[in-house]
């Protein structure tokens, strides 16, 4: 079965997220998220520490238990911080959803392959790390049909999306000074 477009799969998240949900994006998902309408609860994690969007999302989820925190991660970023899956399952944030957009490459650096593209079963890794709610999608229409229900469920939830690799598209540009954006996010989260 052909994989879905990463941008289309991300657009499903954009449509399905609730108005109080926090959405953390990084690398290619940040680049594509910035093409869509923004809210003060969007965390464009650029600049980032490599692979740490999951950890940032865990902290946000623990501090804001009444909000859903959705982390849109890449497979390359996930591989850089696989231990965070265990940290998340151990902390058990019921309001956290981690979505891995798996295209098998480091897209923003020129689409070089990850160490074992197409060989990694992220759903099995997530289950093995202790996630009880694990979903996998390769077909856009199925993902679109089930996304709202998946995001609304009690977590922590792991979603594995197998998407196409894009090449020749530059990585994300920071939308502004990170310190200023941190202050704006803090104000938005107090609301």
């Amino acid at each position, binding site marked *: 079965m052909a994989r879905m477009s990463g941008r289309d799969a991300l657009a499903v998240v954009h449509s399905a997220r609730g108005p109080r949900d926090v959405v953390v994006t990084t690398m290619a998902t940040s680049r594509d998220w910035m093409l869509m309408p923004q809210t003060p609860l969007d965390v464009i994690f650029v*600049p*980032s*520490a*490599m692979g*740490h969007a999951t*950890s*940032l*999302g*865990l*902290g*946000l*989820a*623990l*501090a*804001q238990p009444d909000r859903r925190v959705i982390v849109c991660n890449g497979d390359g970023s996930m591989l850089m*911080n696989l*231990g*965070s899956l*265990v*940290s998340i399952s*151990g*902390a058990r944030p019921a309001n956290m959803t981690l979505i891995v957009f798996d295209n098998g490459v480091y897209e923003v650096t020129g689409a070089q392959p990850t160490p074992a593209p197409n060989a990694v079963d992220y759903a099995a890794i997530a289950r093995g790390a202790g996630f009880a709610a694990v979903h996998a999608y390769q077909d856009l229409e199925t993902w679109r049909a089930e996304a709202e229900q998946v995001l609304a469920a009690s977590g922590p939830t792991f979603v594995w999306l197998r998407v196409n690799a894009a090449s020749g598209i530059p990585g994300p540009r920071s939308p502004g000074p*990170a*310190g200023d*954006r*941190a202050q704006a*996010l*803090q104000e938005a*989260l*107090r609301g």
Partner: protein
Amino acid sequence: MFTGEEIAGVFDELGITHVVTVPDSTIGQWQGAIEQRGRTRLVRVCREGEAWEVAAGLHLGGARPLVLIQCTGLFESGDAIRNVLHDWKLPIFSIIGYRSYLNQDTLPGDTCLVFTEPVLDTWKVDYKLLTTHEQLGEIGAHYTACRGANKPGAILVAEGKA
């Protein structure tokens, strides 16, 4: 040098909501007292770099976190420290165990003594080194000063055998 009960009491007084941690043989002994007191949640992570970003998310979300790691984990944390403290300018406070400072019986010539303080200087972290039990009160004083200045800070706790 400090008991878990003493450290848990300090966290309680400072209103620390979460301690994000990877243990070593000294600071790890504090976990039981922190959990028993019940006012500060322990968040156990797998690698020290994670701790800074988890603390960043907690801080952004309105909590009052603290990172508790060993100096070896400080060395591992470089990219996360750069990102959290300097890109995002978040005033995260940490307590860092200083391996072999008081005793090198287990690891003679431990290079932690060579690199720990220069690394903190490089990352522009305002730290205080505590070497005696009588300095317990300096934890709260330094935390309060750094919080007042809205800047990151650290306490280095001298440790004995590795």
